[in-house]
């Protein structure tokens, strides 16, 4: 293991330990905010949690969680939908690593501290290539080592309000390409009143959620391979969106 990787692994261990101490305090508060202040409800929550637990149980292969993206709190909603609050608060490995946009979530020192405690590795979308690559390398390393990270495979919140296959982000494909046997839990989450993208879902919103686990495959090489992986994930989300829309 090189010195850069050792430093990175050390910083992950430290962050994981600090998050484990902090999560019992902030996770229940976040859940109370979502459930009682905002009045959100996840349809079929118990079944979703059982399915996600089963996906984690049935194989030791690396796992990424890739949801569609419509609001700024999608990652919190996805975690709440897939994992019981007590597990998020007390079992550190159930709290997913998250890669939020630095401009939205980690501008000042307080925001940076909050994202650190929320197990986040901020990224600057469209930032310098080497900085973006360093974050992708960290997530790759975490995924390889059996940690579960959540990444949005579309480049930002969908401006059309629909999953767009052409918006597949290269970074997700790169991580999948770098992690042999990587499985992807595709999560389609949408509020019943959500017409397009927004900062927050409306209060009292009820969310429909669909979950599918895929293992992307490709015969391509290099950048073409990464693009194909990213497209397979977003195509899966698109199919799930179509099914959810038909079911409404």
């Amino acid at each position, binding site marked *: 293991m090189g010195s850069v990787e050792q430093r990175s692994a050390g910083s992950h261990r430290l962050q994981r330990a600090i998050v484990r101490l902090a999560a019992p305090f902030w996770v229940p508060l976040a859940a109370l905010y979502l459930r009682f202040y905002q009045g959100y409800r996840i349809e079929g929550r118990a079944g979703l949690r059982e399915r996600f637990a089963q996906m984690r149980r049935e194989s030791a292969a690396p796992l990424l969680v890739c949801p569609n993206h419509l609001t700024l709190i999608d990652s919190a909603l996805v975690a709440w939908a897939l994992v019981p609050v007590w597990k998020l608060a007390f079992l550190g490995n159930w709290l997913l690593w998250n890669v939020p946009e630095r401009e939205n979530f980690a501008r000042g020192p307080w925001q940076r501290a909050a994202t650190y405690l929320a197990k986040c590795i901020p990224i600057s979308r469209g930032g310098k290539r080497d900085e973006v*690559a360093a974050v992708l390398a960290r997530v790759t390393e975490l995924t390889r080592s059996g940690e579960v990270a959540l990444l949005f495979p579309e480049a930002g919140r969908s401006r059309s309000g629909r999953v767009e296959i052409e918006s597949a*982000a290269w970074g997700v494909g790169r991580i999948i390409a770098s992690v042999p046997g990587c499985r992807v839990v595709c999560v389609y989450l949408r509020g019943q009143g959500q017409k397009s993208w927004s900062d927050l879902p409306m209060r009292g919103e009820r969310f429909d959620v669909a979950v599918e686990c895929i293992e992307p495959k490709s015969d391509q090489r290099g950048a073409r391979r990464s693009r194909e992986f990213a497209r397979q994930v977003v195509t899966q989300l698109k199919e799930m969106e179509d099914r959810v829309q038909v079911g409404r």
Partner: protein
Amino acid sequence: MEQSEVMKSVVKILTPWAKNPDALAGVSMETNILDDLKVNSARLVDVVIAFEDEFDIEIADEDVDTVNTVGNAVNLIMSKLD
């Protein structure tokens, strides 16, 4: 292939992705692809694949991490053509 030929082809490939026509008009080796030309970072992969097709080369994901400017792209392609 001469550097000027590669540069010309690179600029031609970048043209449909560039959202800043002024920067494109004055493009040089120092022009930053994302910051100056305003190419969407998520679409950089399509640009790279277009380079692969145009020059019949293969570019690894890691190679792209070194590409910030048009000059970086030209030099990367030249190194693959050698």
